[in-house]
């Protein structure tokens, strides 16, 4: 598992943690049933506070990405294949909606955008 905290980021730290864990679950780097470090261990490794890691895990649990097994710790939750696909789509959708709003602001039209997308898709293996 890889987590990098940036102090310069506008995102609060708990969000950075939960986003990165979420991304790794969605991409498959973290598999169903994989154990996550305890909140205290994670706090120590990342040198952040215990409450921050607790909040990150709570967010992940709320969104269904992880499960807490009392006494044993936190594990990557069984991901419903459909639900997972949906989550993946949602992530891309969020990115795309940012791109669309930027494009509109900067005056890039739909045709130019589609071209750009096609070039990028073809070059990045």
């Amino acid at each position, binding site marked *: 598992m890889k987590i990098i905290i940036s102090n310069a980021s506008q995102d*609060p*730290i*708990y969000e950075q943690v939960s986003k990165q864990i979420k991304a790794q679950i969605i991409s498959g780097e973290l598999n169903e049933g994989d154990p996550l470090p305890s909140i*205290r*261990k994670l*706090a*120590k490794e990342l*040198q*952040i*506070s*215990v*409450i*921050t890691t607790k*909040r990150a895990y709570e967010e992940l649990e709320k969104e269904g990405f992880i499960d807490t097994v009392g006494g044993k710790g936190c594990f990557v939750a069984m991901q419903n294949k459909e639900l997972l696909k949906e989550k993946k789509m949602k992530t891309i959708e969020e990115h795309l909606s940012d791109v669309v709003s930027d494009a509109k602001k900067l005056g890039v039209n739909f045709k130019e955008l589609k071209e750009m997308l096609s070039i990028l898709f073809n070059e990045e293996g």
Partner: protein
Amino acid sequence: MHNVLEIKNLRKDYGDFCLDDISFSLPEGFIMGLIGPNGAGKTTTIKLIMNLIMKNGGSIKIFGKEHIAHEVEIKSRIGFVYDNPNYYEHLNLRQVKNIIAPFYKDWDEAIFRELVDKFQLPLKKILKKFSRGMVMKSAIAIALSHHADLIIMDEPTSGLDPIFRRELLDLLYELLQNEKKSILFSTHITSDIERIADYITFILGGKIIFSTRKDEVLENYAIIKGGKELLNEETKRFFRGMRISEYGFEALTDNVDNIKKALGSDIVIDKATLEDIMYFSNMKDHHA
């Protein structure tokens, strides 16, 4: 989850200075930073907790028990480090340890030796020859060597170089792996606890300004920077403490959203550090 430390309406009157209606709690298993400038009342609060001075009002409960009635029982579970620890200068560390250790049922010599090694403290040199930093480290080693459930530290890093301050932080993280251990860390060097603290209690002029989760503090507070033309009677009310220079102003706010609505996008919004919060809150005239 219960509170390892519960302070309600604590009062101490010194005539020209008084600690007024202090209330805050520390839940078990977490670390709280008690911050404030010098003279704010941090040391007084800690002395009141340890019953070194008599309170004029209020209640203090430690481990759920009234702190005076169960004093001995409670203190056997507290490890303390004071600002300016005073030990016998004509004795060496081993001798001082031999005086203090017998008072604790749970004294762990192995842990003490480990810490002494880690801190590179000579056991046979008399304390008079110790640097201030070494005396501090000795106090820390002793405080952490009897399986204390609550560690109370008053400015434990003053006089210590930034390298040791980081090492101390590592030590505290290690301690907190045990969810039954709690730490109260009082300091004016806020960078020391900015990352590790779960809770922050800010004392200023004998009063509690806030006592809440650190994350919340850092999310709500911000430094707003902008041109002086933006300042008027109405906008000044949003700020707690302000610095005006020739080229603009910078001010602390505890409500970023309101500011955004009022002043729009003509301002720079920076993250506020605990030090910023302490500095700006301390300004007498908040409307500079």
